[in-house]
């Protein structure tokens, strides 16, 4: 069942350059994705992390033409999958790529699975669409797939309907449907957000085992813990742009962009003294550094033009941040001071709780009017 995973010539499986998606709204164009470039290597798990509205989901949907156009408009310098351009394919070609080479898993399994059809029918459907196999072969393959994603008594339950399964099991089935075409790349959008923590743990195990089988994954999440559990590399998104990227250990041991630091900060890892006093949130700027309105280190150079160029943060050339302070004229020391890594101790998993006495804790943010509405 495992196809050979293409060449090992070092070309990435997925290569995205300057992807832009804008969506027409009543108030004008919304630049949901604003110049995003990244690679996903073969067998690699890449996590796209950001808050709601950061453009992480739209990025994924833009790759395979899942965003409805109109109202959206997608453009890019290049979207290459397995060495071939995907960007200007016809809808029919995209469909074939979508089911077979690139598969999607969404947050809500209830909406991904059709309540009218049995689980077996839904898992065999992509197999029979993309391959000319007999009904019984497809059925055997479906049992294998369901077993692989951890559905107990898969053979018996092939004829059950989705509602007979729990939420976690439904998500597994949705993953099985996605794996049915034996894709090279699995794109999962917040796949564990709707489930309980013990169920999430099992799903994360499952994703790791899928990654272990050589399938590349692009996983979208807002939860740094999920990132820590599955990612090889991390892309941190803010305001439609990637602000920091790097191997997961590097980013987690040394969060370098002020936004990434703020994100870690909200997990209560550090005492948050610096970021908590950030300025009021206003509209997210659409040029320069998008985070500058909230950034405690913002300077005049942050504004205008394209987003700041990626500069490698430490010795590791892979780990880079889009922040002027890391540029040739910048001085990142002020930012580096704040970098508190969650890896410094595992205490956060144990007992440590930061002081909650307001007298001692300068972390209590002033309740400024937050203009996060968009």
């Amino acid at each position, binding site marked *: 069942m495992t196809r050979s995973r293409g060449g090992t010539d070092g070309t990435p499986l997925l290569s995205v350059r300057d992807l832009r998606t804008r969506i027409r709204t009543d108030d004008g164009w919304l630049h949901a994705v604003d110049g995003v470039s990244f690679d996903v290597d073969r067998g690699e798990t890449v996590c796209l992390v950001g808050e709601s509205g950061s453009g992480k989901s739209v990025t994924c949907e833009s790759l395979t033409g899942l965003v409805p156009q109109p109202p959206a408009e997608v453009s890019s310098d290049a979207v290459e999958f397995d060495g071939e351009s995907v960007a200007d394919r016809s809808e029919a070609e995209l469909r074939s790529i979508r089911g077979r080479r690139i598969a999607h898993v969404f947050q809500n399994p209830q909406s991904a699975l059709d309540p009218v059809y049995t689980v077996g029918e839904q898992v065999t459907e992509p197999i029979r669409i993309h391959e000319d196999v007999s009904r019984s072969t497809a059925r055997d393959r479906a049992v294998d797939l369901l077993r692989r994603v951890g559905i*107990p008594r*898969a053979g018996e339950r092939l004829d059950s309907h989705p509602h007979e399964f729990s939420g976690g099991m439904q998500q597994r089935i949705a993953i099985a449907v996605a794996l049915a075409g034996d894709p090279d790349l699995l794109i999962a959008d917040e796949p564990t957000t709707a489930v309980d*923590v013990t*169920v999430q743990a099992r799903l994360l195990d499952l994703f790791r085992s899928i990654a272990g089988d050589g399938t590349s994954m692009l996983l979208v999440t807002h939860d740094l813990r999920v990132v820590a559990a599955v*990612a090889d590399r991390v892309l941190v998104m803010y305001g439609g742009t990637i602000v920091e990227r790097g191997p997961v250990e590097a980013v987690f041991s040394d969060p370098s962009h002020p936004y990434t630091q703020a994100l870690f900060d909200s997990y209560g890892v550090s005492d948050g003294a610096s970021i908590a006093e950030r300025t009021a949130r206003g509209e997210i700027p659409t040029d320069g550094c998008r985070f500058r309105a909230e950034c405690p280190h913002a300077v005049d150079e942050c504004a205008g033009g394209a987003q700041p160029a990626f500069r490698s943060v430490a010795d590791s050339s892979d780990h880079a941040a889009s922040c002027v302070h890391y540029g040739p004229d910048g001085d990142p020391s002020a930012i580096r001071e704040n970098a508190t890594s969650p890896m410094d101790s595992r205490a956060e998993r*144990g*007992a*440590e*709780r930061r002081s909650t006495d307001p007298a001692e804790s300068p972390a209590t943010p002033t*309740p400024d009017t937050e203009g996060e509405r968009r």
Partner: protein
Amino acid sequence: MTEEPICSVRGLEKHYPITRGLLRREVGRVRAVDGVSFDVERGEALGIVGESGSGKTTTAHTVLGLEEPTAGEVRFDGDPVSELSGDERRDFRRRAQLIVQDPNDALDPRMTIGEAVAEPLRIHGLDDADRRRAIVADILERVGLSGDDLDRYPHEFSGGEKQRISIARALVVSPDLIVADEPTSALDARVRSEILDLLDRIRREFDIAVLFISHDLDVIRRSCDRIAVMYLGEIVERGATETVLADPAHPYTRVLLSSVPSLDPTDRELGRPLTDTVPNPSDPPSGCRFHPRCPDVIPPDDLSVPEETWRTIAGFRFSVQAGELPESAVGDRESETPTSGDGDAGGRTATEVRRAVGLSEELRDPEAEAAVEDAAAELAAGDVDAADEILAAAFTSVCERETPAAVARPAGRDADRDATGTVSCLRHGRGGTSEPARSDGDGKNES
């Protein structure tokens, strides 16, 4: 605190009958909450943590009198809530407020936020519209919004702002208790921490007790003084947040804690219960309700196998019971145990079944060996029920016979029980003889 608690819950039960037919004959009942007791002290934050189906939201609703308890009592400021009437009841309705989970359905989309925040005042009889407006404008500024936002509709606000409005609405009638049901589960991390900080600040400033209902241990850790862990309608462990989370005594608490991924990407181990299926609350397991999933389930007294083997046997037994084994008994539950390959779709042998569940080696205990072999044979023949019966008869744990009582958590055996909290687990509660088992397997073999 010497004062009496603002809210005191004793033996709370809430059962939902499952009825059938036009005459609504009761054919069973969902035991959503089944004997829960706790106190919320004045000004403190108590967190109730549990997964969906644990009954935490039902508990919250029953505390607020939104649901009539099936049994048990809720006392508010010393008075039983069910007996309140007239002005006293109205007073209770004012002093205990609710913040709901989803900011998107917390506010009526047809009401301006001014009307929404003023609603409690209006319901509680403040008829002066101008005065209401002034109070609302003031309170909106206190939660970080602008008084000018009064005439805008909820859809014009972000999730975090809507939750601030919800908090304002709860605050506007000067409550003594706020029940916050998953107040941040729909929010992004940064907004979540802002909202939690706001709740924290408000709690301290106005000395309001907060009952947090959450599935998120981060939220509880951050905001609560004390924690109560719920599983299938019961509180299994409680105590000061720091101590419980640093040194969880109940196996379920440990599973819960270790299921949360660490922020350290080099530490990717996730905890797991023995079986994944959450039992149906209409038919909860006997004895300790967690026993079919408990990694530390107590072995039968007459069993002489190593702890590790016992855990495998227990896993085998409860997987069969929960129907989690594949019909071919290929132990592919999480793909850690080796699969027997895809080619052998034909008949199984007992040996294959045993290999699949990790019990291929012969057990030292002859009776256990016989039972496992018989069960494997039945499974190989496809008779799951028979296998289940054999295993249940051979490996009956005390955990399924005895209901554990709440005993003081081990750390504070000689200290004050209220301070250290309690745990309901037979590992801790059998006359203090057995040492609490650790998930790393140093539990004593009880043979």
